[in-house]
């Protein structure tokens, strides 16, 4: 895996990541997780893991445990088409009648419109022709069946998986023509929820207040039909840019502009996001954006007085970290170390943008941090506040640093309201409040929501 630790300016100029052979990773998940996460949070899609059962077991837990209650994921099936070592060596990929019977039952129960086969490593390595298996399933069950060609071994982070899943979802629509509407798709939401108190609800509501209509959300909570509907929008905007793959450049060539490239965090970041979307749709909405921002200004000023100049550690994935940096710049904290969970093809440009356009200053920067790197940060820097992935709680607690989880939460950190929500959490942490209920569950605060009045 590719790592970096050191000077921020040097990193963004040269992007000289080094291959490391041992990783005490605590936060990154692999390509299979990424693809499965997309399909599992969609309506009418049944993912089937092909090969070894272990992948099903851990991926099922990792996804459902964090999303079932908090983001309405509910009980969703992930099926297995199991082959053992002997099957793979002898090339025996026959499917039993009993398996068909069970899958048909499951597909009926969940209104499945699309089955997606996800290979495990033995299948990828042995070069099995999944197209043939997909066709067989399609013919037998009369349900569209697609397949991916990436498995766990295809990459050391989520990127390959997101790209591969998006390509499979968009493929049927790329050559069709659609009439564009003045709407935007929100890309990168991973859960079925559309609740106002969650980040997706906050984004949809914020866009509505400033007069922008959302076409589709990609992919959480959407159906196959919503993917096709998304082809009618005039722009794609990122809720989380970590998921972005080359497909969005292809879509741009087809007339769906890429707008709001960085997640809407912080006052500046949110304004930048909204204006970029409005520009892409050719809508003038600057006054509404400013009015919405003003609603949160008083709360912001109070929090800034408390948080300014505090020494902070912050970590996050490629989408979230950029966003959090926006918020922290607004509060004028001193960022001692920032850590990027995994490098995305956009990360270098995003960080450059943050330096050049938003005057980002970071003393030390880590790419692909491990628990060993975090121990070093906790020892070497005097940190007042630790914003990090949920498993960083151990290190923060060990070193007595106030900790705010940024991967396990429900109240939005996005939008103008997110600046206040996060600021309130930072304030509470400084006062000694513990946001960790247990090793799997975080405590949450009531979100702060102000609305522009109808006439505005």
């Amino acid at each position, binding site marked *: *895996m590719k790592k970096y630790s050191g000077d921020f300016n040097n990193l963004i100029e040269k992007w000289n990541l080094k291959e490391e*052979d*041992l*990783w*005490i*990773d*605590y936060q*990154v*998940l*692999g390509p*299979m*997780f990424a693809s499965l996460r997309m399909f599992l949070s969609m309506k009418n899609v049944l993912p089937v893991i092909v*090969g*070894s*059962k*272990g*992948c099903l*077991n*851990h*991926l*099922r*837990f990792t996804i*459902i*445990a964090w999303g079932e*209650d908090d983001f309405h994921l509910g*009980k969703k*099936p*992930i*099926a*297995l088409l*199991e082959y*053992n*070592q*002997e099957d*793979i060596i002898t090339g025996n990929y026959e*499917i*039993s009648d*009993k*398996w068909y019977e*069970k*899958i048909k039952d*499951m597909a009926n*129960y969940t209104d499945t419109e699309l089955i997606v086969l996800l290979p*495990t*490593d033995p299948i990828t*390595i*042995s070069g099995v022709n999944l197209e043939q298996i997909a066709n067989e399933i399609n013919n037998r069950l009369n349900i569209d069946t697609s397949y991916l060609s990436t498995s*766990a*071994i*295809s*990459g*050391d*982070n989520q990127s390959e998986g997101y790209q591969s899943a998006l390509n499979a979802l968009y493929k049927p629509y790329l050559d069709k023509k659609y009439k564009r509407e003045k709407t935007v798709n929100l890309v990168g939401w991973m859960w079925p929820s559309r609740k106002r108190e969650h980040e997706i609800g906050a984004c949809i509501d914020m866009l509505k207040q400033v007069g922008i209509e959302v076409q589709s959300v990609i992919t959480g909570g959407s159906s196959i039909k919503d993917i096709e509907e998304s082809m009618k929008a005039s722009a794609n905007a990122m809720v989380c840019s970590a998921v972005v793959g080359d497909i969005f450049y292809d879509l741009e060539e087809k007339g769906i502009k890429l707008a709001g490239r960085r997640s809407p965090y912080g006052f500046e970041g949110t304004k930048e996001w909204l204006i970029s979307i409005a520009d892409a749709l050719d809508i003038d909405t600057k006054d509404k954006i400013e009015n919405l921002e003003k609603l949160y200004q008083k709360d912001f000023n109070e929090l800034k007085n408390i948080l300014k100049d505090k020494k902070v550690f912050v970590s996050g994935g490629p989408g979230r970290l950029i966003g959090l940096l926006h918020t922290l710049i607004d509060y004028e904290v001193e960022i001692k170390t920032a850590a990027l969970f995994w490098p995305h093809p956009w990360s270098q440009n995003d960080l450059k943008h943050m330096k050049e356009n938003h005057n980002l200053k970071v003393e030390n920067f880590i790419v692909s941090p*491990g*628990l060993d790197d975090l121990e070093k940060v906790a020892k070497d820097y005097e940190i007042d506040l630790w914003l990090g992935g949920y*498993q960083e709680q151990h290190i923060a607690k060990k070193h007595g640093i106030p900790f705010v989880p940024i991967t396990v939460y429900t109240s939005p950190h996005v939008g103008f309201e997110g600046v206040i929500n996060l600021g309130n959490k930072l304030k509470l942490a400084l006062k000694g409040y513990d946001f960790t209920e*247990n*090793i*799997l*569950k975080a405590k949450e605060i009531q979100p702060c929501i102000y609305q522009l009045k109808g006439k505005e």
Partner: protein
Amino acid sequence: MYISTKRERIEPLKGCSMVGIIEGILGMDDALPLVHGPLSCSSGHRMVYLFADKEPILPTTALTEQDLILGSQEKLKYALEKAYDLYKPKYLVIIITCAISMSGEEFNVIINEFEKNNNCKVSVLDGSGLYGEEVDGFNLLYNDILKQFNVKDNHTNLISLDGIALSDVNVYNNYNTLLELIKNYTELKNGPSIFMNFNLENDLEKYLKSKKVKIGHLWNNYKVENNIPAPYGIQGTFKWIKWIEEITEKKIKNELIVDYNNYNEKLNVIKEKNNFEKVKVIIEGDSWSSLGLASFIKNELNATVFLSTDNYGVEYNKKHRLVNNIYNDMGGYELFKMANKIDPDIVFGSSYIRCKKKWDIVPFSQPIYHLYEKDHKLLGFEGAFKIIDLIKSSINNN
């Protein structure tokens, strides 16, 4: 070792061999796993540490396809050295994944050289799903420890109850109940258990002297004639203590018969007042614990039990007929869907089968999301009455 050949499982309850290895090793303070394979195999299994309420230190070489083509030996060599420098383990287990298992790479030269220079034993264990099941991994690790540290069984008063893992649901309640049973009804002394916060440096010497009793995840050899499941219920607990007597050849105390009769009488009084015959119970879990619980509920309370367990449990049940309705490694949504049809009064299982609107759930097997369900002391004589209380309360609720 069990290798599935029927291709009929669509949502297995249990994981691959790697899960078993991690479940065991995380209970050894000065041991370290190193996942030699793709990042996903490490990251996905961090959950096992979380179940045990532990920081998920699960280092990996994070291999990609390119590494497989070029060979992964150099990577592993470096990773071994660095992992040792960081954590100074006394025992380091390299867990190979499906990709490496298929590539057939061997690492003996690297390991021999490493062991020559460092005070640390190193093993390579196959954690791939192609190689075996969760329970196979646990046994693989255990057998390796016996070999690496020259552990022998002894005929002695000191016993080690091996096979309980820190990641098990309700682990401390369960383990302490077992220790109490040993203490109350035998003259045996409880020694260290290999996966229960075991420290090689401090505990090995004592462990080497003890009689080892395989329970929990190590109870998987259904071919052993006198093997019996976990001590649930009055009969079940009595039989379990008698089994301890049999395998240790140390006579039990007379108090056992006295207590057994008293508890039996108490149970009979409850059964006279309550008819459990119409009660439907679903149980989901590892064979040792779930067969013990299922047997109590079905054979002592006469309720109807539906049990999903690992294949070893299924094979054991074929011979001993503890329950009638048994499902091989059925989990997730498939089991949930079946539960909807059964409409149980109460479920002992994981969060996959949780449905608070329809039935009561007692946390019994991993995974338990968010750890919000309450733990109960269900093992042993006293546990039987707690189980009855839970069943009675679920009947009243429903």
